[in-house]
């Protein structure tokens, strides 16, 4: 069973993502902030990370940089979940190592498709 870590500071968004991914057989854990996320990355050893850019105690960019700096986590595919719809933010995400970018709001099928694509590629 593939493990997905969802990092978002909105409890109901985390809830929604968990409902969708669990229905498709993924094991889902969550973190609500930068520090929490960094701790969970080593505890949960996820196969894929869904990352919001605006977090309670900082920005998703910090988590992305941390992930890409560490040999143990550098290979984990990261999909950004963001309310920023601007192309420049998406370009920056890809440049800094993210594998995909989903703009909020999104439908269940596009989330599942993106997650499946990147989990199987890894």
């Amino acid at each position, binding site marked *: 069973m593939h493990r997905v870590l969802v990092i978002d500071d*909105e*409890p109901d968004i985390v809830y*929604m993502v968990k409902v969708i991914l669990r*229905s498709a057989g993924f094991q889902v854990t969550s973190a609500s902030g930068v520090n929490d996320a960094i701790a969970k990355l080593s505890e949960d050893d996820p196969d894929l990370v869904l990352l919001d850019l*605006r977090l*309670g105690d900082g920005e998703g960019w910090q988590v992305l940089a941390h992930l890409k700096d560490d040999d143990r986590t550098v290979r984990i595919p990261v999909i950004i979940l963001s309310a920023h719809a601007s192309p420049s933010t998406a370009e920056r995400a890809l440049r800094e190592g993210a594998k995909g970018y989903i703009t909020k709001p*999104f439908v269940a099928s596009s989330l599942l498709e993106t997650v499946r694509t990147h989990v199987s590629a890894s």
Partner: protein
Amino acid sequence: MARAADRNPDDPTIPISAGLRPLEAESIRMLVESVRDYAIIMLAPDGTIRSWNAGAERIIGYAGDEIIGRHASVFYPPEDVASGKLERELDLATREGRVEDEGWRVRKDDTHFWANVVITALYDERGGVRGFAKVTRDLTERRQIEEARERFIANAAHELRTPLTVLVGMISFLRSAPPETASEMLTEHLETLSRQADRMHSLVNNLLDLTKLEHGPELITLDPIPLATTFDRLIVAYPAPEGKHVVRDLGGFTVLAEARRLDQIFANLLINAYRHGGNFIVVRAWDEGDAIAIKVQDDGPGVEPSLMEHLFEPFRRGRSSQAVEGSGLGLAIVRGFVESFGGTVSLDRSAEGARFVVRLQRG
């Protein structure tokens, strides 16, 4: 009357007075010099400053005798100086007759202001450029209002997008569920859907309330309203979450207010205390002569120092409270409504926890 071509080309008064009788020329010079809302200056063809008026001194800060003779690039930020912005503008004005620009400029004290600048070329009778008239307006305040509005809209869109994301995600998921399980799943997730719809509803109401307040004073009728009955009603509508307690001591005080707005003020302060405070919330009123003061105090961690100055502005929330549900508009509405009654609201910085004090006219 001397023709313009006979005059000394270095005389800054020539361009605007050319062809005029001396008395008219003197009147116009005095008029220009006395204008205070516009910086009106004359430049030589190479950009050297030749004349300076009262408006220029007021907006940019230099006195005439310290700036005349210097180059006008002194008003431009370093990056514009490096890129030769003024020279380009003067070239364009020479070719086209006039150039208009909006951008940041630098005052004598190094502060920046947002300027609207019109540069008009002044030609001699043979078509050669004898200088430029440069008229500058300080539009910093308008620019700040525009920026605040853009920020406000961006924040409002972001706040709306969160509940929208939950609704769109959950509904699309439920639609794709097998028919035999869809109804069961809908029941299971209905509470989440309903909570997010309520959140959007209250955010939209808050946005409308704030927009109305921004449009200036609305005609509202103030009535004497007893505080105790207001709070009796509010505690039923907004009960304390489990484990939290509200202690009330409102005496028999009556304030001048409009009932719906008064409810909203204290509902927002109570919700704020429920979300960010500890387990005890104290609401107490006392007499201050003309005014009645009402405090809503919690025993939580208090307001972050970095937030205090902007606490009552829209979309200001503490970092630690990002995860706490809320639109970021509650306190802005509190202030707007309190002020619409001729009252004040403040945060008592000396208090432990957060202590908001509302002062309203005695009813």
